[in-house]
Each structure stands twice: as structure tokens, then as C-alpha cells.
């Protein structure tokens, strides 16, 4: 049991009190962290924070200003160039397009530290190249000239080359830059499978916080000349830490949604969205995009709608999970409705716990406020409206919002 554990938790990269940068400028200081075998580490941070400088130091393209880097327990400084090449390979942002290079030739360059004096490929080298191409699903690109490849295809070939080097660690500098969504996801899944299946340790600088959160084992938040946070993304990435990392003003990250929501400026006409039961996320985003100021309620605090409303910066009335809506909250919400231009019903299912929301509809109609609804059944037609308010049934969020824009 112990043996299994020790092999699983083997540290392949250990950084102690490391300072990186250039002679006249320290970019990052006092870095200490450990990466385990097969771990996926994402370096996150704004442009110019020092992610690339850190990667270049780890790959020995730059010498550390202070501190040590241990690769497989060996001091990075003391490794020969060849030993280092057998332990670590890199994927850089630099565009590499030598002429007359087929994908095969390019990936085969990765065998450099393993081949003899003249670099002749043996049968086992050729097998390794084919395996690397297969790992990145690029067997079909074998004989394509690399200058004719798309950005996404080229990135896969670059990763295959790094893989053909048969390293314990692969360092990647912004591997998803310039890629379309398909290739972005494909590259990330490939990297993940390198960790899981091959036990390769991956350290990558990334800009997609949402994808990084879902794939990485560890994240490092790089900002202000240091790693401001290091650890599991589940612990490290919160609304506050991500906002601080990127100095978000008009957006925010939500750890439950794992995505970034754009905050509305809240300057437009106030609309009250009666929501809940995860029915309002799309409507919130659309309203926010069109510049409405959103007030919403009454939401349970474990509801998707609640998370989106919070992330998007909507004023909301909420209730602890699994509790009935209290009269007190209803009263507050009713008051707020009075100051809104209209009320929107997202068509959520009404049950015992959220039945208080029905009171809001009633109140809205009594106040003569227009009510736009996405409800499909005949809920509003049966008890005729008590007073001047009228009900506008809508089929979709976009229809609702364009109706709003026409009428308000």
C-alpha cells in the first residue's frame, strides 16, 4: 500500500525559493512549489505577469536569479543538455515553419536526444514518432507539409514533437492561443490524457480560466511578482481570487458555474425577474447584454439562477435552500417591484417551497405593472387579472426581450 502511494505521489518538479527574471529585473520572486508525477499544472495570470519567464526558467532557457529547481530530484543546473532533453520537452509560442518539413519530419525531430551521432531513426524511434502522432490524433497529417497546416493542426504536431522526446515533463507556453474552440478543447483533452495515461507531468500557461479549472490538478495564480495562490483549482479559484488576478471590473468568475459572466452595467431600465428552479440563466445574460438593470427573486441560494444572478451582478432576493419563502422576503420584493418598469416570469415550476413567488405575480398585476411570461400553461388566463396589469405571453427569451424593448 505504501509502495503504491509513494510511486503515485512522486515529486518530479520541485521549486524552492526561486526568483526568476533578468539581470536588471526580477519578474517573480520567492516561488516554492512541488509538482507530482502525472500532475497537470496551469499557470494563470494576466499578460506580462511572468508566466513565460517562469516556464523559460524551468526549461533552463533562463537561469534562475535565486533558488533551486529540482527535476526528478536532480538539480536543474547540473543536468547535461542531453539529460535535460530526455526529462523535459517544451512547446513554445514561437512560430516554427521551416520549409520542406512534413509533419513526420517535425515530430521525428523530437527523437533528437535519443538518436545517434547522425540522428538516424531506428525502428523504435519510428514507433515512438507514430505513437506520438497517434496520441494527438494526427496520424492523418503524417505527410502534410507543416506550412500548410491550420493553427490547430500545427499545435497538435508541436505537442506530438514534445511527446516524441519521451519526457517526464512537458512545459507548454499558451498551448491554446489562436486556436478555435474545437482545437482548444482537443488540445486540452490531449494534454489531460498525457497526464492520466502516460503519467507525464504537464505545466502550461493558460488564459482560459474556466477550462483550466476543470482540467488542472493544480493552478498557480501569477501576479504582482509572485504566485499569489497555489493549489487545487477547487480551492484556489473563487470569484474573488479570479477577479483580483485579472483585475476584473465588468466580469466575474463563478466557481460553481466554472465560467465567467459579464457583469451588466445596471444603468438601463429596471426589470424584476421572478425566477428560480434554474430557469433564468439565459434570460439574465440576454437582459444584461441589452443593458437592462436586473432585479431578481426570490431565489433559493443553491439555485443555478442564484449563481448566475450573483455573477452577473444582479440585485437579488434570496432564501436559504430547502426553506419556504418567508413573508418578510416577499414584502421586500413587492416593494422593489413597485420601482420596476415591469415584471418577468421565467415560467419556473411552482411548488411548495417557492410558492411565495406567485404572490409577486399577483402583486405586480395589482400594481398595474406589465407582466411578461414564458409560462407555457394557462396559469395566468384562469384567474382573470384583478386590475389594470396585463400579461404578455412569450415563447422564447429573445422574443420576450425584443417585446420589452419595443414596449418600454
Amino acid at each position, binding site marked *: 500500500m505504501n509502495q503504491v502511494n509513494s510511486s503515485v505521489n512522486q515529486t518530479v518538479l520541485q521549486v524552492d525559493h526561486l526568483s526568476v527574471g533578468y539581470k536588471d529585473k526580477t519578474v517573480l520572486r520567492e516561488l516554492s512549489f512541488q509538482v507530482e508525477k502525472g500532475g497537470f499544472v496551469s499557470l494563470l495570470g494576466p499578460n506580462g505577469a511572468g508566466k513565460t519567464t517562469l516556464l523559460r526558467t524551468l526549461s533552463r532557457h533562463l537561469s534562475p536569479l535565486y533558488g533551486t529547481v529540482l527535476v526528478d530530484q536532480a538539480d536543474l543546473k547540473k543536468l547535461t543538455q542531453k539529460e*535535460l532533453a530526455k526529462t523535459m*520537452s517544451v512547446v513554445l509560442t*514561437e512560430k516554427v515553419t521551416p*520549409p520542406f*518539413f512534413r509533419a513526420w519530419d517535425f515530430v521525428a*525531430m523530437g527523437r*533528437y536526444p535519443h538518436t545517434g*551521432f547522425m540522428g538516424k531513426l531506428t525502428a523504435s524511434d519510428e514507433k515512438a514518432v507514430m505513437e506520438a502522432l497517434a496520441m494527438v490524433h494526427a496520424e492523418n497529417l503524417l505527410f502534410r507539409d507543416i506550412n500548410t497546416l491550420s493553427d490547430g493542426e500545427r499545435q497538435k504536431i508541436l505537442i506530438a514533437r514534445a511527446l516524441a522526446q519521451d519526457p517526464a515533463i512537458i512545459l507548454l507556453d499558451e498551448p491554446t492561443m489562436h486556436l478555435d474552440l474545437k482545437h482548444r478543447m482537443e488540445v486540452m483533452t490531449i494534454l489531460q490524457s498525457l497526464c492520466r495515461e502516460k503519467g507525464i507531468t504537464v505545466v502550461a500557461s493558460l488564459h482560459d480560466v474556466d477550462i483550466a479549472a476543470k482540467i488542472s490538478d493544480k493552478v498557480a495564480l501569477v501576479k504582482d511578482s509572485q504566485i499569489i495562490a497555489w493549489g487545487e483549482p477547487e480551492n484556489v479559484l473563487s470569484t474573488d481570487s479570479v477577479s483580483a488576478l485579472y483585475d476584473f471590473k465588468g466580469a466575474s468568475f463563478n466557481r460553481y458555474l466554472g465560467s465567467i459572466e459579464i457583469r451588466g452595467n445596471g444603468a438601463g431600465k429596471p426589470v424584476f425577474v421572478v425566477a428560480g428552479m434554474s430557469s433564468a440563466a439565459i434570460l439574465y445574460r440576454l437582459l444584461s447584454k441589452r443593458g437592462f438593470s436586473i432585479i431578481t427573486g426570490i431565489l433559493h441560494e443553491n439555485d443555478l439562477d442564484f449563481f448566475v444572478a450573483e455573477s452577473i451582478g444582479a440585485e437579488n432576493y434570496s432564501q436559504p435552500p430547502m426553506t419556504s419563502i418567508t413573508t418578510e422576503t416577499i414584502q421586500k420584493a413587492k416593494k422593489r417591484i413597485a420601482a420596476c418598469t415591469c415584471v418577468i416570469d421565467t415560467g419556473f415550476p411552482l411548488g411548495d417551497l417557492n410558492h411565495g413567488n406567485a404572490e409577486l405575480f399577483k402583486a405586480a398585476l395589482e400594481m398595474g405593472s406589465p407582466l411578461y411570461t414564458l409560462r407555457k400553461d394557462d396559469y395566468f388566463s384562469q384567474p382573470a387579472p384583478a386590475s389594470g396589469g396585463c400579461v404578455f405571453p412569450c415563447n422564447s427569451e429573445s422574443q420576450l426581450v425584443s417585446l420589452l424593448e419595443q414596449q418600454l
Partner: protein
Amino acid sequence: MTSETIHLQKRQTFWFIVILAVMAVTVALNIMIGSVSISFSDLSHIVSAHDTASTEGFIIWNIRMPRAIAAVLGGAFLSVAGLLLQVFFRNPIVSPFILGITHGATLMVSIVMLTGLTLGFSQISPYITTLASFVGAYAVLAIVLVIATRVKNGVTLLIVGLMMGYLCHAVTSMLLAFAEKEKIKGFVLWQLGSFSGFQWNEIQLMTIIGGLLLVLVYGLGKPLNAFLLGEDYASSMGVNIRLFRILILLCACALAGMITAVAGPVAFIGLAVPHMARLCFNTSDNRILVPGCVLLGGLITSLCDFIARMVFSPVELPISAITAFFGAPIVLSLLLKRKVSI
């Protein structure tokens, strides 16, 4: 081993044989044809009997053969030097002269030829120009190498070379302004480059040193290929950048400097032949391109020398005029058609 790879290898072997054959024919023509034409049977007799006594024998052994061999060697060395530098700088328009070595050679030669500074010799002999140009080329080379150990990236080094060239050129033009008219003509002719007047001992020396350098360069094939991906990738794959940077520059400059010292600046070969070789052998693999450039460079240069001697015979055109006149359009069309770059 895939069928594609085998097909490529067959194609490359085919081209090696073709180039070698055409080169043999060109060299033979260079030796046979001239103001005095010599038939093939006479030639084979003179060569096999080592006849240096007869007029034809004298012409062949002392004039045409050294010149024909020098053209092949010169073409080979300049092409390989160009290849090395194009790979090293990852720049398609780099040639051996970009590092300023020609300008260094020209400067020293201009000092000797234009100022009458004869270093103690009573008159300006070809040996002195050779020596001066050798000193000039290698002095610049030494400076560039010293700087190469200090600078971090290739582009800086490229600019250093260019600036060295401008500096030398500036001094040369000042000397030209003050020089006497008749001296200028001799200098201008030297600047155009020529493979005539090579001595056997020079050829021996060039063959031995150049041959060793070519073997060394061939041995650099693997790291040279890594350099194609740039220094960052090369070092991550295990190339000792500092060492190979010096080795590559040293080999390139030594090869080009050696030819420049004796033949003067011969333009274009170092720039054009590597491109032709890449297209011809359909590869960037330097393990193929080094021998490829040796053969193709030798062929192209002897062909150009043949044309230079023959078109307006007995007036002999400068070799650089021919290399550029025929070479530039060829390279241009090849590049446009295939859209290649480095």
C-alpha cells in the same frame, strides 16, 4: 520506413547522380574549351601521361585545370557556408557575406592595392593581395566570433555583421576617393572576383582544409537540423547552443573566407545554391543538403565560370556578373513557383 520516404530517397539519389554527372561534364568542358581548344582524346592523353611540357599540356596543367578545380571548390565552399548561415539565422536572404567578411577582405586588399602599402614587397604580387584579403576576412571573422559568444540572439549578431561590413566599406570608399586612377581599375577588377590564377599549392591547401571543414559540417548535420526549429527548441532537444553557434559560424566563415581570400568576392552562389538544393532534393534535412550543396555549388559555379569565359571570348566576364545574371532570375522563379522560405 514508409513508401513516401523511400520515394523521396530515390528522388534524392537520382538528383545526386544527375548533378555529379553534369558537373563532371562541365569540368571537362572547362578544361577542354577556351582560346585553344583541346580534344577529349588529347586531354586524356595529357592527363594520363602527366604531360606538362607541350603547349597544350602547359595550358591544361597550369591554367585550366587549377581554375576548373578552384571553381568547383569555390562553389562548394560558398554554398555550404551559405547553407550554414541560412540555417543558423533562419533567414533565407543570408549569404556568407552578411557577416562582413568580404568587406573585411576588401578593406585589406584596398589598403594594399590603393595606398601602395606593400608590406616590404617591391611590387604588388597576387600573393600579397591573397594574404591581405585573408587577413581582412579572418580579422572580421574573429571579431564576429568574439561577439557571438556574448550576444544572446541571432538577429543581433546579424546586425553586428552588417555593421562590420558598413564600417569596412566606409574605410574602403575613403581610400578609393584618394586613390590614383590606374590603381582603381585593378582594385575594381579584383572586387569582381575570379577563379583564374590559382596555384596548385593553393588548391592543395584549400582541398585539405576545406575538405576537413566539409566533413566537420556534415557531422553537424543533426544539430543543424535542430537549429531549423530555432535556438530555443534546439537547446530543449539537447543541443549545446553556445558550442554549435561557434562551430557553425567558424565553419561558415572559414569556408567563405578561404575562397574570398583567393578568388575575391564571388557573389550570389552562397545565397542561391542552398535554395536550389532545397528545391532539388525536396527537403530541409541538412544531412542531405550539405553534400547536395557541395555538388550543386560546384556544378553551378563551374557552369558560370564556363559562361564567363566563353560568351564574349576572348574578353572574360567577371564571374559575379554571370552568377547574379543567371542565378537571380532562376532563384526568383523557383521561389515564386514553390513559395518557399526558411
